[in-house]
């Protein structure tokens, strides 16, 4: 449910690092709380985002939540699949349901995120 190789923010986003690119999405807790995701509002590639700043919104039938980036940097890629098939966020929140990829400016920001065990403890 909460892979060990990822880092987590308290706003229920996860980060997977590939070199200095951070792949970011929402956790199982987030997508289960929302229910069926119907729309994801993401910025354009090339936009800068600060750590813990809002970068978009995610909507289900009955709720809307802000999305906050766990790390700061330039957004280099945005997952186009979420436009036509927002349900991928529910189906594979850690896989094909990723949201944005950020070129991380300051790697030390990762230290401020939680590991899987710590994050799960916050859910109780």
């Amino acid at each position: 449910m909460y892979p060990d190789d990822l880092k987590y923010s308290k706003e229920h986003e996860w980060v997977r690092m590939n070199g200095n690119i951070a792949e970011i999405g929402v956790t199982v807790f987030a997508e289960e709380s929302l229910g069926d995701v119907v729309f994801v509002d993401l910025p354009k590639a090339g936009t800068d985002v600060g750590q813990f700043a809002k970068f978009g919104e995610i909507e289900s039938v009955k709720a809307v939540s802000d999305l906050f980036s766990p790390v700061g940097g330039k957004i280099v890629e945005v997952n186009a699949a979420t436009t036509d098939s927002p349900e991928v966020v529910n189906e594979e929140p850690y896989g094909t349901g990723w949201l944005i990829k950020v070129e991380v400016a300051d790697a030390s920001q990762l230290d401020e995120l939680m590991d899987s065990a710590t994050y799960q403890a916050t859910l109780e």
Partner: protein
Amino acid sequence: MASSVNTSVNHPYIPSTDSERAEMLDVIGVDSLDGLLGDIPVEHRHPKLDIDAGLSEQELSTVFGSIAAENASSSSGYISFLGAGSYSHYIPSTVRSILQRGEFVTAYTPYQPEAAQGTLQVGFEFQTIICQLTGMEVANAGMYDGPTAFAEACLMAARVTKRTKIGVLSTADRRLPDTLLAYSKYQGIEIVEISADATEIPDDLACVGVQSPNFFGEIEDVERLTNLAHTNGALSVVHVNPTALGMFKAPGEFDVDIVTAEGQPLGVPMAFGGPYVGLFACKKVHIRQMPGRIIGRTTDTKGRIGYALTLQTREQHIRRERATSNICTSTQLIGLMVTVYTATLGKRGMQDLANLCYQKAHYAASEINRLDGFSVESLGSGGTFFHEFVVTCPSSPSKINAVLLDKKIIGGLDISDRSDSGMLVCVTETSSKADIDKFVQALSEIGASV
């Protein structure tokens, strides 16, 4: 201080009897209602109210009969040439008949779609009809009225373009920018008047708001104004008359971004100003910024077709302070009236109706124009008008109207504040040739003598 305490009266609208109340209080575990009112400050309980005693249905009918008799209308033998945003049209028997159905009238907002497929399918038909009339891609299920729909459209344009200046053409009904002002005054919005023949506009407008037919009854050049807006990065917001759309080009043909209208002409009584329904349609690309309820088609667990409110995350009950609008209860039943009306008139009826209004209005205009001292500029302007036109009178329109009233004629609206000695006259299918001739005759007698 204390008036009647725990002495509920028997009334047709309140079924509980004394013994039933006693039984319920016993179950609750209190001696009397006062036992349940503990949190209400004692000194303020059971205030004296200066309200009359209740009336029987028969007495109530008499009261209302007297009230109605004090008003002048077609039912008391008056003919009227008032328009300016509320219009006299014949309402077919089908509309009144369907409105008798308590299942529509006394239903709640369709938040539980399984229990509201009637309301929802009607709303879907309403959305369809608005798209068909306006030529636009999507429509919502209705707003309060025309002017608030226009205000919401301008605010939507501001959200979409992220600009704060709204342009409104000078020929629009003042009620449009007035309502917009009330809605926008604390949102950092500036309203700018654009001259109707402007060839340039500020390059920071969120939208150009146009009314066509305009307040003076004339058709605006929507295509030109839309191009002008788009060239400057602004949206085109056009406020139309739905009856005219039976005959005149739909705004959707001109790449307009948002269309609004007053829906009252489509089967809704004038009723001293309300309730009406605001029509709202836009391009599909803007749908997430559209205010109001939207009804979508879908399927149930068995694959059967059904309808439900959709895209609800735009609305106040979910997004609260970030909602596209605070609108909650709107005008669903009026939307039903519009839907039944338009289904009844149908393709042919809407075309014939528009033509009939046009014919009678143009006849009246040309007859009035021939009178000494009166002129109708729209006749010679090279443009065209639908069913309203301005008459320039030889003297004060208000004084003329006062004399007309004695002849049981309600004249057009005195608009001399916007057009010298101007009277805005409207003629619909409800005016016969005899009515028009009587009006013209009366004007010629009044002439310059007032």
